[in-house]
C-alpha cells in the first residue's frame, strides 16, 4: 500500500472507530482520580440469575490500566489505520472487526462475572481470527488465522472448564467476591485442576512456550492489527487473567514454579529467536513473546517488587511496542519492505518517524530517563526479590534484556541512522494520521520516565493493590534508586547488549543454523492437524457405514443393553403378571395389532409390510380412543395414513424385498424380543407404583378458568407449554428442511 499517493481518508468507516475509542478512553480517564484513591467501582445487572450469570462490571486499578491501554492505544491505532487502509475495498469491514475487538477486550477486562469474562474472551479470539485472516485471499493468512483460532480456542475451552470448577468450588462466579474470600480456592481439593485449566487458557492466549508459535504467524495480519492485538492488548488477556486470579490462586509452590519456569523459558527463547529474524515485524513479534514471558514470570511471585515490576512493565511494553510496530508499518508503507538488510539511513527521509522510533527504542532497551529504564530496574529488583531462585531468574532477565538492547538497535537504529548501506531513494515522510500514534506513544514513554510518580499514583499502585489483593504498598517508581545491584545489572545489560548488536550478523547465522536443524513447532502443528483429520476420517468410516441396517442394529441393540443392564442391577424383581380384566374390545384390538405385526414379519412385499405396520398403528389409535384420548388418536391415525400414502409413492420404485439370511433374522428377532420384554417389564413396574396425579389435577382445574379452553391437550400445547410447542414446531421445520435437502441433493457420480 503506497500511502504517498493522495487518497481520501476522511471517511466514516475510518474515523467512526477513532471517535468510539476516543470517547470510551475519556470515560475511563475520568475514573483515574477515583481509582487512584484506592476505591473500586462495581455495577451489577442480573442476567440469568438462576445460573448465577450476571453482567457485572468491576473496575479496580488492574481493569482501569488495561481499559486505558485498550482504548488509548486503540484510538491511536484506529487513526493510523484510517490512513493506512484508506481506499482499501474492505476498509469498513476492517473497522468493524477492529472496533468489535476493542469492545470485546474492554468487556473482558471490566467483567467481574467469570462467565461473562469467558464470553468476551472468546469474542476476542473470534475477532482476532477475522483480523489475522483479513487478507483472506492468501493461503498464509488463512492458515495463520485458523492456527490462532485453534490454539486460543482450545485454551478457551480449558478456561471454561476451569471457570466452572471455580464457580462450583467458590459458590459464585463473581471474581471480586472470590478474591475477597481468602483461601477459598487455594485450600480446596480442586486447586490443582483449577490452576492447570486456568493457566492452559492464559498460556495459549498469551503465547507461552510451547503454545507460542501462533503469535509470530499472526503477523500475517495488517500491521495496525499486529500493533494493537498481538502486542498491546489481546495477547495480554492471558496476563490479565493471571493477574486477576492472582489473589485467589497465587501463593503456592505450584503456581510459583509453573509461572517462573514457563515465563523464563519463553522469555529467553523468544529474545534469542527475535535476534534471528530479518523481517522487522517478526523480530518485534518475538520481542512481544519475550515481554509476555517476563510478565508471566513476574506474576508467579507475590512480593511487592515483582508485582510493581509487572504492572510497570505492562504499561511500558504496551507503549513502546505499539509505537515500534506502527513505525515498522510506516517503513513498510513508505519503502515497500520490512527487511532489516535493505533498510538503512532513512532518518533524513523520515525525520519524525525516526525520532519516534528512537525514543520508543530507548524505552525498549531500558535507557534512562525513559520509562523502560524504570521497568527494567524494577524487573531486576523483582528478580532478586524472587524467593525461589534469584540467580536463575535474574540471569534469564539479564540475557533477555541484553537481547532487547540489541533488537532495539536493529529495529530503530539501523534502518534510520546506519551508514552500512545506501538508503532507498524517493522515500517521503508518512502522512500525519500515521505519525500521531507512534509520536504520542513514544513521548508518553519518556514523560512517565521523567515523572514516574504521575504513573505510580494513578495506575501502578492501584494495579498492584488489585493483584496482590491486600494493602501492601507498591514499591516506588524512581529513576535514580541509588547505587545498588539492579544498577550494576543494568550496566551489564548495556555492555552485553551492545556486544550482541555488534556481532549480530554472526550470531544470526549461528541461530539460523540451529533453528533450521532443530524440530519446528510449526511443522509439528501441521502434523498434528493432519493426524487429527486422518484419525477422524478413520473413526467416521467405522461408525458411519451408511447402511441403515447397521444404524438400526446399533441403536436398538444399545437401547436394549442399557435398559437390560440397568433393570438387572437396579430393579427389585419382576412384578407378578396376571391376566388383565379387560373388555372383549380390548382383546380384539390386541389381536389386530398382533396380526399386523406377524404380517409385517412374514411378507416379502414392501407394500404389504407397510400395510401391516399401518394396521399396528391403527390398532394403537383404537387403544387411544378406547381410553378416551381422542386428540392423540386422531393424530396417530393421520400420521399412519400419511406414512402409508407417502411410502406407497416411494415403494413403487424400490426393488423387490429379498429374503434375508437366516442369521441376520435371528439377530433381529433377538433384539426385538429383548426390547419387547424389557419394555413390558418397565411398564409393569411403572403401573405397580402409585401414579402422581398432581399435574393432571392442575390441568383439569386450571384449563378452563385460566386458559379458557376445555380441550386440555390443546390447552397444554398452545398455552401452558407453548414454549415447548414452539421448540417442537421449530424441530419439525428443521427436520423437513433436512429431509428436503437429502432428497434434492444428487449424490456425486450417481444418476438417480
Amino acid at each position, binding site marked *: 500500500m503506497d500511502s504517498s499517493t493522495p487518497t481520501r481518508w476522511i471517511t466514516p468507516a475510518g474515523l467512526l472507530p477513532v471517535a468510539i475509542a476516543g470517547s470510551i478512553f475519556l470515560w475511563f480517564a475520568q475514573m483515574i482520580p477515583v481509582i487512584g484513591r484506592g476505591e473500586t467501582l462495581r455495577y451489577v445487572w442480573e442476567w440469568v440469575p438462576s445460573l448465577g450469570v450476571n453482567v457485572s462490571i468491576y473496575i479496580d486499578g488492574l481493569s482501569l490500566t488495561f481499559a486505558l491501554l485498550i482504548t488509548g492505544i486503540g484510538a491511536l491505532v484506529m487513526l493510523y489505520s484510517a490512513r493506512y487502509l484508506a481506499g482499501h475495498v474492505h476498509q469498513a469491514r476492517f473497522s468493524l472487526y477492529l472496533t468489535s475487538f476493542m469492545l470485546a477486550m474492554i468487556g473482558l477486562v471490566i467483567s467481574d462475572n467469570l462467565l461473562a469474562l469467558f464470553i468476551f474472551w472468546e469474542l476476542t479470539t473470534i475477532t482476532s481470527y477475522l483480523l489475522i485472516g483479513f487478507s483472506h485471499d492468501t493461503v498464509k493468512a488463512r492458515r495463520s488465522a485458523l492456527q490462532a483460532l485453534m490454539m486460543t480456542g482450545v485454551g478457551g475451552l480449558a478456561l471454561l472448564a476451569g471457570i466452572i470448577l471455580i464457580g462450583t468450588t467458590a459458590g459464585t462466579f463473581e471474581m471480586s467476591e472470590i478474591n475477597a474470600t481468602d483461601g477459598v480456592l487455594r485450600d480446596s481439593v480442586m486447586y490443582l485442576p483449577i490452576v492447570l485449566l486456568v493457566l492452559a487458557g492464559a498460556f495459549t492466549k498469551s503465547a507461552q512456550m510451547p503454545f507460542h508459535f501462533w503469535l509470530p504467524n499472526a503477523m500475517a495480519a495488517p500491521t495496525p492489527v499486529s500493533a494493537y492485538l498481538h502486542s498491546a492488548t489481546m495477547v495480554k488477556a492471558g496476563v490479565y487473567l493471571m493477574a486477576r486470579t492472582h489473589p485467589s490462586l497465587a501463593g503456592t509452590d505450584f503456581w510459583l514454579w509453573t509461572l517462573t519456569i514457563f515465563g523464563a523459558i519463553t522469555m529467553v527463547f523468544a529474545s534469542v529467536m527475535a535476534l534471528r529474524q530479518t523481517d522487522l515485524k517478526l523480530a518485534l513479534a518475538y520481542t512481544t513473546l519475550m515481554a509476555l514471558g517476563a510478565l508471566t514470570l513476574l506474576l508467579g511471585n507475590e512480593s511487592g517488587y515483582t508485582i510493581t515490576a509487572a504492572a510497570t512493565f505492562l504499561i511500558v511494553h504496551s507503549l513502546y511496542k505499539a509505537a515500534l510496530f506502527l513505525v515498522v508499518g510506516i517503513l513498510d508503507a513508505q519503502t515497500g519492505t520490512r527487511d532489516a538488510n535493505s533498510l538503512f539511513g532513512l532518518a533524513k527521509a523520515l525525520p519524525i518517524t525516526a525520532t519516534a522510533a528512537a525514543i520508543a527504542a530507548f524505552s525498549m532497551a531500558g535507557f534512562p530517563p525513559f520509562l523502560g529504564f524504570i521497568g527494567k530496574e524494577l524487573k531486576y529488583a523483582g528478580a532478586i526479590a524472587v524467593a525461589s531462585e534469584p540467580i536463575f531468574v535474574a540471569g534469564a532477565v539479564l540475557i533477555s534484556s541484553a537481547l532487547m538492547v540489541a533488537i532495539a538497535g536493529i529495529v530503530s537504529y539501523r534502518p534510520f541512522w546506519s551508514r552500512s548501506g545506501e538508503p532507498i531513494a524517493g522515500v517521503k515522510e508518512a502522512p500525519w494520521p500515521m505519525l500521531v500514534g507512534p509520536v504520542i506513544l513514544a513521548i508518553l514513554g519518556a514523560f512517565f520516565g521523567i515523572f514516574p510518580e504521575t504513573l505510580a499514583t494513578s495506575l501502578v499502585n492501584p494495579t498492584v493493590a488489585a493483584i496482590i489483593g491486600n494493602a501492601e504498598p507498591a514499591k516506588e517508581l524512581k529513576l535514580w534508586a541509588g547505587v545498588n545491584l539492579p544498577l550494576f545489572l543494568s550496566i551489564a545489560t548495556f555492555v552485553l547488549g551492545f556486544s550482541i548488536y555488534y556481532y549480530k550478523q554472526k550470531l544470526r547465522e549461528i541461530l539460523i543454523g540451529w533453528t533450521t536443524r532443530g524440530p519446528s513447532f510449526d511443522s509439528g502443528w501441521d502434523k498434528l492437524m493432519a493426524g487429527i483429520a486422518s484419525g477422524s476420517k478413520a473413526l467416521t468410516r467405522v461408525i458411519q457405514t451408511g447402511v441403515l441396517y447397521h444404524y438400526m442394529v446399533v441403536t436398538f441393540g444399545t437401547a436394549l443393553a442399557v435398559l437390560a443392564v440397568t433393570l438387572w442391577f437396579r430393579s427389585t424383581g419382576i412384578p407378578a403378571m396376571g391376566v388383565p380384566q379387560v373388555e372383549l374390545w380390548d382383546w380384539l384390538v390386541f389381536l389386530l395389532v398382533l396380526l399386523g405385526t406377524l404380517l409385517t414379519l412374514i411378507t416379502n412385499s414392501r407394500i404389504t409390510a407397510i400395510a401391516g405396520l399401518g394396521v399396528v398403528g391403527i390398532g394403537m389409535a383404537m387403544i387411544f380412543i378406547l381410553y378416551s384420548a381422542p386428540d392423540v388418536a*386422531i393424530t396417530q391415525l393421520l400420521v399412519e395414513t*400419511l406414512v402409508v400414502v407417502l411410502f406407497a409413492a416411494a415403494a413403487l420404485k424400490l426393488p423387490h424385498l429379498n429374503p434375508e439370511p437366516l442369521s441376520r433374522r435371528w439377530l433381529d428377532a433377538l433384539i426385538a424380543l429383548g426390547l419387547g420384554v424389557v419394555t413390558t417389564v418397565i411398564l409393569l413396574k411403572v403401573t405397580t407404583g402409585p401414579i402422581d396425579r398432581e399435574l393432571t389435577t392442575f390441568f383439569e382445574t386450571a384449563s378452563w378458568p385460566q*386458559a379458557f*379452553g376445555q*380441550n386440555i391437550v*390443546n390447552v397444554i400445547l398452545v*398455552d401452558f407449554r407453548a414454549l415447548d410447542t414452539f421448540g417442537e414446531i421449530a424441530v419439525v421445520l428443521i427436520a423437513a428442511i433436512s429431509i428436503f435437502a437429502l432428497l434434492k441433493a444428487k449424490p456425486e457420480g450417481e444418476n438417480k
Partner: protein
Amino acid sequence: MNSVILIAGARLQAVLLLVFSAYMLLRGHNAPGGGFIGGLIAATGFVVYAIACGTADARKALRFDPGSIAGAGLGIALLAGIMAVLWGDALFTGQWLFIGATEDDKGIPLSTVLVFDIGVYLVVLGAVLSIAFALEEAV
C-alpha cells in the same frame, strides 16, 4: 396416473379436507382438534391431490412454496408469543379479547393462543408437504 375419476375425486376430497382442517383448527381449544391435527388433515388433502394430479399441479394449487409456508408458520407462532411480552406478561402467555362480552356470555373470544395454533397449523402443513412433494418428485 391418468384416471379421470381419481382426479375428480381427489379434487373434491382435497377441498373437503381443507375445509375440515380449518374446522378442526378452530374448534381445537374446546374439543378434539387443534393446529397440529388441522395441519395434518390439510396436508393429507394436498398429498392425495398430488398423487392424483401430479406434484406440479399440487404445487400450483398450493400457490406458495411449502417451505415458505412452514417458515411463515414459525414466524406467526413466534409473533403470538411475543405479543404477550408487549402486554407485559411472560413470553407465550395467552392474551384474550372477548368482543361483546356480558356477565353471562363471553361473546366472541379472540386470543393470541389461536394465532399460535395457526402458526402450528402452517408449520405442520408446510413441513409435511415439503417432504411429501420432494419424495414424490424424487421417485
